[in-house]
């Protein structure tokens, strides 16, 4: 069991560590980044983001309502980055560089250290993208017949 803390209260400390050129290891809560990040098992190493960020990177960002979120960049448009959890299909638009606090430099699956160059991780990312597209299509497929029936 790792000691838990409220991210909102520790955001200033995390920023101070990152701005010093350091990294901060954090155990994310929730299920939105499953199957990659399992609650209370896996952790991420946060570093200062180097702009512009690339598609596929996992970022820690602050929403307008003050909520902190760790999700993956799945695209970019004129409003900013488009993010989504690996376990989600709902896209979040309009994440600007000002919202971004940190980028995930590497991951610990339990105590196994995985960098972004890791072959297994790259395979995961490749297949996740394919699965993600299938899930979006599947979700749309579930919605569209309902709309058709309503006509």
């Amino acid at each position, binding site marked *: 069991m*790792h*000691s838990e*803390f409220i991210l909102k*209260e*520790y955001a*200033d*400390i995390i920023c*101070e*560590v990152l701005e*010093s*050129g*350091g*990294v*901060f*290891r954090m155990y994310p809560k929730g299920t939105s980044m499953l199957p990659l990040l399992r609650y209370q098992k896996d952790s991420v190493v946060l570093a200062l983001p180097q702009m512009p960020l690339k598609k596929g990177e996992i970022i820690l960002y602050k929403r307008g309502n003050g909520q902190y979120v760790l999700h993956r960049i799945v695209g970019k448009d004129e409003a900013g980055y488009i993010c989504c959890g690996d376990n989600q299909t709902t896209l979040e638009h309009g994440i600007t560089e000002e919202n971004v606090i940190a980028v995930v430099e590497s991951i610990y699956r339990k105590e196994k250290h995985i960098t972004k160059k890791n072959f297994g991780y790259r395979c995961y990312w490749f297949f996740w993208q394919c699965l993600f597209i299938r899930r979006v299509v599947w979700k749309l497929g579930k919605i569209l017949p309902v709309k058709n029936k309503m006509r």
Partner: protein
Amino acid sequence: MKIKEGFILRSVGSENVVVAVGEQSRKFNGMIRLNNTGKFLWELLKEDRTEEFLADELVANYDIDREQATADVKRFAERLKEAEVLA
């Protein structure tokens, strides 16, 4: 003994928290939470101190006897050594 370079002590609400910055953060993961006595000892350990000196300071500043102070300092120092925080 003395605290290594690259550690900072910050207050978050009522909590005292130690984290590593810069290069040190690549060797030291996470954070150390300190109570007020721990914070007092941490501040003293910014300079090279002996366990005897720290125990003396505890006795002088807190309502604690010498035997208890020595035991507390020993336990605190062991914890910091385990975390590889001491130079």
